[in-house]
């Protein structure tokens, strides 16, 4: 059973484009607002109805116990997809399953199995600053009928044991975010849906939280986290798997390294060589495994810069170094440039969508 499975999931919105129409009357506080709005929608020829496809035929299979990143620029459909999975929106077509429960037919099971948090900081909606983490979790446990013994486990996994009886009002941002996640742990949620979880959180705390999520929620509690972000570094550094979205479509998915290697096969090796004889440059160009060789010319009087592109830098690099050293050249600087998720994203978007 997959933690999350989507089948042809599509979500569209209707948008009304007011072309040259004076719309200032069409306001909430205007008594005629409704009539004007209805007129604009159904009779006004200057208003165009447009269907926006926010999520377009998305098919995903996410196994249990993974930290999965939904990566894409603003407007790519990440938030809509998460809100559909959390049953806050209905899909226009298709369906999805959370831990085997249909989001259309078993809505009541979804909030038990999935914890949706729109930014870890918004978890404050479940908290009262005057209470302590233990009291907040106790209220949740009583409300939802969870065994109170689970509170200690949730506090321990959230690394809030030491401050369990301290008022939440004194907490730092990172602690508040961990407490948000602790509510999900108390619920024993097998699936977490996090929308831009680190929005408004500093780099240091972001790192701490991702490490915490990966170690405690994913590895120890065996839960699945699907988090949406447009931050490529976060995705590459922390995610077990990345799903690239663009204009509502999933354009690529896989483990970050595999994704990079499968799409962007070549890597570049950059050399700065002192006193490099011309015949050594020729030898380097002829090395096996090199797809493309570029001589960038002189950096200064005695130093030249060379770039070679290869699919297998592990084989090419030692051969290139020995060729230079044997030819009495002196390596001043060497660097292997690995493609990043950003390169992948740009290439995939160009190739698939133009």
């Amino acid at each position, binding site marked *: 059973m997959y933690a999350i499975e989507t089948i042809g999931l599509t979500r569209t*919105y209707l*948008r009304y484009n007011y072309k040259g129409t004076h719309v200032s009357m069409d306001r909430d506080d205007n008594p*005629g607002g*409704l009539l004007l709005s209805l007129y604009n929608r159904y009779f006004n020829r200057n208003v165009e109805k447009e269907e926006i496809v926010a999520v377009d035929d998305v098919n995903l299979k996410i196994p249990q116990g993974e930290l999965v990143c939904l990566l894409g620029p603003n407007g790519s459909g990440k938030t809509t997809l998460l809100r559909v999975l959390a049953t806050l929106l209905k899909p226009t077509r298709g369906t999805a399953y959370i831990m085997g429960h249909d989001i259309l037919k078993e809505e009541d099971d979804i909030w038990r199995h999935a914890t949706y948090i729109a930014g870890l900081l918004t978890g404050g*909606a479940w*908290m009262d*600053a005057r209470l302590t983490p233990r009291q907040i979790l106790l209220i949740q446990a009583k409300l939802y009928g969870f065994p109170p013994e689970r509170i200690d486990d949730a506090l321990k996994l959230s690394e809030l044991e030491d401050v369990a009886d301290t008022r939440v009002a004194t907490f730092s941002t990172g602690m508040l975010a961990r407490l948000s996640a602790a509510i999900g742990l108390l619920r024993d949620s097998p699936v977490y849906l996090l929308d831009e979880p680190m929005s408004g959180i500093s780099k240091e705390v972001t790192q701490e939280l991702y490490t915490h999520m990966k170690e405690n929620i994913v590895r120890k509690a065996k839960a699945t986290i699907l988090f949406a972000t447009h931050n490529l570094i976060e995705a590459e550094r922390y995610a077990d798997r990345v799903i690239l979205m663009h204009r509502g479509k999933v354009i690529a998915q896989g483990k970050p390294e595999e994704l990079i290697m499968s799409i962007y096969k070549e890597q570049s090796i950059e050399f700065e060589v002192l006193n490099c004889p011309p015949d050594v440059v020729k030898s380097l160009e002829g090395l096996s495994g090199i797809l493309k060789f570029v001589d960038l010319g002189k950096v200064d009087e005695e130093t030249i810069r060379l770039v070679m592109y290869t699919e297998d830098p592990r084989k090419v690099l030692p051969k290139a170094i020995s060729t230079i050293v044997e030819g009495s050249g002196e390596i001043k600087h060497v660097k292997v440039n690995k493609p990043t998720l950003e390169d992948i994203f740009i290439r995939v978007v160009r190739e698939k969508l133009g």
Partner: protein
Amino acid sequence: MNIDRIRTKISLFTANFFKFLLFNLFMRYYWIEWMLPFHVTNLMLGASTWLFFGKSFEGTNPIYQQYGADFISFLILGLMLNSLFSYTLDAFRIATLFTLRGRVGSMGQHLSMYDYVRLSGVPFSAPILAFVVDGYIEQFITMLVYLCVGLLFGLKISGGNYAVALLGVCIGWLAVIGIGLISASMIMIIGAWKGIEPIRWLVGVLTGLVSGIYFPFEVLPEGIQVVSRILPQTYALRVARLALLQGLGLSDLETDLGVLMLMALILFPLGVALYKHSINLLRVKTFVE
């Protein structure tokens, strides 16, 4: 749905209903402190104006004979029930708008009320009913003020048939709740979250003229009385007045009560069904459309 789930739903509803109700009551404290004295004064002066106006031609029209020729009591009962029914027409629509536009959170971190309710499994009815119940407190205060003013002016209901009057009011209330729910469902069905909601507006405008709040609807021309007869308020007011002022019983009022019951049986389930559909539409249309 197993027993545990039903129990959880009930506990979530109860806890959240009282949480929202307490919050609303707490907010109402300011209303009580700052607004209530002025509100009561306005009501007393307004009711007195009507009553002096009535006194000037009391008993001159034979149409009041069927109501015991007591215009003061006739009018006071009309004003009291009008407060109840007018609020009922608005209650669910306003509660829904407040809930959909409300936010929940602490320390500057908020979720929309709708997201909060759905994500926490809280029944949507909890905040809605808390808001509605809270609003009725104001209406009951208003009704009490009218009653006191009426007693000052000589309201006579001591020989009335209270049970039948209460039955008529309750059935009428149920029917008006139905209209209120239909009106509330228009928020999502036709996008009536802006401006005037047409159903409530139409019923509200007609009620004032034709349902017999201020004068018996029998004085209206026959053609307009047709409109009176399609409003549940007309029957509820008539039953309450005849039962309280003339002491009429079930057998005397069976036709009015029968029509009222029929209206309630149609309007209430229709209102509930449309309202449920409109809440479901929230996840389909959203406020974007």
